[in-house]
C-alpha cells in the first residue's frame, strides 16, 4: 500500500508516561474503508496509540496523518485538538451523555458543525435507524440498557461521516451473548457505511472475527501486522503465537533444512534423547541457532498405542490430568521436561498417569526465531 492512499498513517509514533515508553516507534497505515484492530494485553500501548490518533494524548515523537492532513507531528510542533480532526470515537464506557436524549446525543456532532435543522433531523434519524434505535429517539440515555447505549455511542460517532472512527474496547462492558451479537452487527455496519475504523481490544476472538487486518502489540511495540488468518496460522514470534489462541512453545536448535521444512532438535531433559521434528517457518534463522517450536493444542494427535505406520514428529508422554469441556477434552501431557496442552475432540478414557504417544504434522509445527 502506498503512503499516498492511507486514510490514517502513523510514522514512528512515541509516547512516554514519565520514564515509561508507552508507545514505541509505532508505524502503521490504514487504508480507506479498512477495519484495523490494535490487539494486545492491557498496558501494551494500544489504547494510548488510539488516544494519540484521537488527539486526547499528545505524542512525544513521530507524526500522525489523517487523510492528507498532518494532525500531530512532534518534530514540526503540529498538534490539532480532537475537535479539529474530524473523527468519531466510541468509548469503553460508552460515554453517552446522561443529561440528553438519545436524539440529542446523536445530533450533537451535527449541531456543533452548524448543520441546518432539517439536515440534523434527517441524518440523526438515519443514523438511529442504522443502529436500530429510531423508536427510542426521545428517551433519556439513563433509561437505556448497556447494548442500547453502545448503539447510541456508535450512531453518535458516525452521524457526521467522519474520516475515521476509533473504537476503544467498546464491547468489553457487555455480557458475553450481547458482545457476540454486537460484534456481528458492528462489522455489518462498518461494511455498510464503509467507514475507516481503528479498533482497540484485548479480546483476540473479537479481533479475529471483525478485522481486515490485526496489529498485535506488546510493551508499546508492534509485534506483527497481518490479516487474521496469517496472524493465527503464521505468528511472527513466540509472543504472538501464545497471545493469539493457545500454543505449546518448546525451545530447540535449528539443525537442518529441506525445502519448505526445517529440522529442529528439542531437548527433552536428562535420560531422554532429544526430539527431532520438522516444521515450517524458520526463515532467516541460521544453522545451530536457538529457535522455538510452536504447536497448537488442537494440532497435536494423541495415540494410545504407538502408531504402526511411520509417523514423523512422534514422542512419548504421560497424561497429567484432563478437563472435560463439553465439545472436547483438554488434556495436559508431560513429555520429558515439557508440559504440553492437547485438545481431543473424540474420546476417550484417558487416565492420569497413562502413557500416550503424541505427534503432529510438519505443516502444523512452526519454527519461530524470537
Amino acid at each position, binding site marked *: 500500500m502506498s503512503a499516498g492512499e492511507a486514510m490514517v498513517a502513523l510514522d514512528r509514533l512515541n509516547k512516554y508516561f514519565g520514564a515509561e515508553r508507552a508507545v514505541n516507534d509505532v508505524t502503521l497505515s490504514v487504508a480507506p474503508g479498512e477495519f484495523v484492530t490494535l490487539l494486545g494485553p492491557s498496558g501494551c500501548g494500544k489504547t494510548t496509540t488510539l488516544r494519540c490518533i484521537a488527539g*486526547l494524548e499528545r505524542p512525544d515523537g513521530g507524526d500522525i496523518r489523517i487523510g492528507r492532513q498532518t494532525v500531530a507531528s512532534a518534530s514540526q510542533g503540529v498538534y490539532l485538538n480532537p475537535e479539529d480532526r474530524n473523527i468519531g470515537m466510541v*468509548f*469503553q*464506557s460508552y*460515554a453517552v451523555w446522561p443529561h440528553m436524549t438519545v436524539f440529542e446525543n446523536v445530533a450533537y*456532532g451535527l449541531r456543533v458543525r452548524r448543520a441546518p435543522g432539517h439536515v440534523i433531523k434527517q441524518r440523526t434519524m438515519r443514523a438511529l435507524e442504522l443502529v436500530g434505535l429510531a423508536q427510542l429517539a426521545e428517551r433519556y440515555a439513563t433509561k437505556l440498557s448497556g447494548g442500547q447505549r453502545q448503539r447510541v455511542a456508535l450512531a453518535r460517532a458516525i452521524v457526521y461521516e467522519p474520516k475515521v472512527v476509533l473504537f476503544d474496547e467498546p464491547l468489553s462492558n457487555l455480557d458475553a451473548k450481547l458482545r457476540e451479537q454486537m460484534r456481528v452487527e458492528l462489522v455489518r455496519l462498518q461494511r455498510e457505511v464503509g467507514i475507516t475504523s481503528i479498533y482497540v481490544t484485548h479480546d483476540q476472538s473479537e479481533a479475529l472475527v471483525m478485522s481486515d487486518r490485526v496489529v498485535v502489540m506488546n510493551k508499546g511495540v508492534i509485534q506483527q501486522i497481518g490479516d487474521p488468518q496469517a496472524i493465527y496460522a503464521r505468528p511472527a514470534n513466540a509472543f504472538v503465537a501464545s497471545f493469539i489462541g493457545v500454543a505449546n512453545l518448546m525451545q530447540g536448535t535449528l539443525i537442518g533444512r529441506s525445502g519448505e521444512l526445517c529440522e529442529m532438535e528439542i531437548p527433552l531433559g536428562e535420560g531422554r534423547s532429544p526430539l527431532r521434528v520438522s516444521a515450517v517457518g524458520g526463515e532467516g534463522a541460521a544453522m545451530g541457532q536457538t529457535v522455538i517450536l510452536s504447536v497448537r493444542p488442537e494440532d497435536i494427535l494423541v495415540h494410545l498405542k504407538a502408531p504402526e505406520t511411520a509417523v514423523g514428529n512422534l514422542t512419548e508422554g504421560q497424561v497429567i490430568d484432563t478437563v472435560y469441556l463439553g465439545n472436547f477434552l483438554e488434556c495436559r501431557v508431560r513429555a520429558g521436561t515439557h508440559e504440553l496442552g492437547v485438545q481431543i475432540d473424540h474420546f476417550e478414557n484417558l487416565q492420569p498417569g497413562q502413557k500416550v504417544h503424541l505427534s503432529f504434522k510438519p505443516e502444523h509445527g512452526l519454527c519461530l526465531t524470537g
Partner: protein
Amino acid sequence: MSVQTIPGAAAADAPQSSRWRSLVTQESVSTLVVSVIVGAAVILPLITLVVSSFKVLDSGGFDTTWGFDNYKRLFTDRIIPKAFVNTLIISFGSTVVATFFGVSLAWINARTNCPWRERLEPYNLIPFFLSPFVGAIAWHNLASSKTGLLNVWAREYLGIETHLLNVNNLWGVVWVTGIFFAPLVYLFVVGSLRRMDPSLEDSARTTGAGLFRTTMTVTLPLVMPGILSGAIIVFVTAAGEFGVPFKLSAPYGWETLTTQIFSKAVGDDANHYLGATMSMALGAICAAFIYVQQRYIAPRSFTTVTGKGFRPNVLDLGPWKWVAFGYNIAFIMVAVVMPILCLFIVSLHPVWEGRIFLNELTTINYEKTLFWWQSGAIKAATNGIYNSFFLAFVGASIAMVLSLVVSHMIHRTKGFGARLLDFLCVVPIGFPGIVLAMGVLVTYIQTPIYATLWIIMLGYITRFFPYGQRNISSVMLAISEELDQSSRMAGASWFTTLRRITIPLLKPGIFAGWVLLFIIFLRELSISIILYTSGTETLSVGVYYLANFENEPLTCALSIAQTVVLLICIIVFRRVAGREALTA
C-alpha cells in the same frame, strides 16, 4: 407462667409473646429513646413557634389574645415588608455571586491544568470555616465610604473625590455573603467534577466540540444538580444570615428579616410573638426551598462514574491557565487575605479613622478583649472566650454521640423509626439558626435552662447535629454492614458491636465531624444572639457587643482572635479528615 393452658390458644400465644420479647431489645429500646429525644428537640420548638405566632400582645405588653394580628403586621408594618424584599434581594444576589465564584473555582481546580491547583484548594475553602460576620466587619473597614481603607487610599493615590466602593448597602451584603458562601457551592460541585468520567468530555471533543462548547454543553449540565443544590443552600443560608446585614446594611437603613427579628424580639420592648411570626415567614421560605432541593434536585444527580481505569485527565488551558491561576489568587485575596490583613491592621490602632499610623501601634485592644484577669478587660468579650470554648467542646461532643447513634439507627436498623429519624435530621437544615433560636426561646423561656449556657447549647445541637450525622453517615455507608453482622454472628450484643466494631471503624468520620461542629459552634452568631443574656455571651456575641457598643479596633482584635482559633481548627480538620474529606 402457671396459667392453665387451653390447647390451641397456647400455640397462638407462644409466637406472640416471643415476638413481643424480641421487640424489647437493647436495639429497639435505644432507637425509641433516641427518636423521642431527637423528635422532641427538633419538633417542639417548631410547634411552639407556630403556636406563639398566633399570640397577640396587647398594648400594655402583658396579656395576650389569639389572632392573626401578627401576620397582618408582616404586611402593614413600616419596615417589615421592606425587610422582606431586602432579604430576597440579598439571598438572590449572593446566590448569584456565590454560584459564579463557586462553580468557576471548582471547575478550575477539578478539570483544568491551572498551576498549583492542589495547593490553592484549601485556601479557596477557608471562608467556609470563618465567620461571615467577621468578614463583614473586615469589609466594612476595607470599603465603607468614609473610613474604608481602600476608599482612603483611592482618595489619596487615585485622586477620587468621594469613594471608590461602598459596602454599606444591600450590594455590600450581597458581595460579602456571596464570597463567604462561594465555598458551599464549590463543595457541592467539585466532587462530581473530579469523579466525572473524562470520556464524557472526550467524546464531545472527538465529536467536534471545542473546549468552551464542551464545558458549556456537557461538563456544566452534568453537574447542574450539584450546582442547583449548592445554590439553594446558599439562598437559604443567606436568607438566615444575621451578622452581615446587621453590620453592613441595617445601620444604614437596609433592614432584613433577620435584623428585624432581632430588634423586635430581643430589644427592650421585646415582642417574642411578633418575632415568632416573622420567623415563621422566614422559615417557610427556607423550608420550601430545602424541600425542593431534597425532593427534586438531590436525587437527580447523574451517575457519571463509569468504565474502568480512566486516568483523571484535565483540560490543557494553554496560556489561559495563568489567567485561571490569577483569577483564583484574586478570589483568595478578596475572600481571605485582604479581610484578615485589614482586621489585623485596624486591631493594632488605639482608634481607627481610616489611616495607618505606624508609630501608634498598640496591643491594648487585645489586652482589653482577651486578658480576662486584667481589671480593664471588657467582660462581654472575655466571657465569650470561655463560654464559646465550653459550648464548642461539650456541644460538639454531645452532638457527635447523638449523631453516631442516629446514623447507626438510620443505616443499620429497619422500620419506621429509621425513616422518621432520617426525616428529623433534614428538618433543622431547613430552618435558619435565628428561626430555630426563636423557637427554642419561646419554648424554654419559662424553664430553668433559660438564661444559661444550656439553652444556647440546645439550640446549637438541634440546629447543627445533622452536619455531624452526615459526616458519620457517609463513612458508615462506605463500611460494609457485614462487618457489623459478623460481630453479631460471633455472639456480640448490639451494644458491644457498636462499641467494639462500629465506633472504631468510624473514628475518622467521628473526629472530622467533631472538629467541624467545634468550628461551627465557635463562630455561631444568629442562635447565640437570640438566646444569650448578660454572662452567657459567646465569642461572636462578644464581637457583636464590641461592634455595637465599643469601637472598631476592639472589635477587630476579638475578630482576629476568633479567626486565628478557627484557622488552627481548619489545619487540625485537614490533618484528621484528609484532603478529600469535604470535597470527595
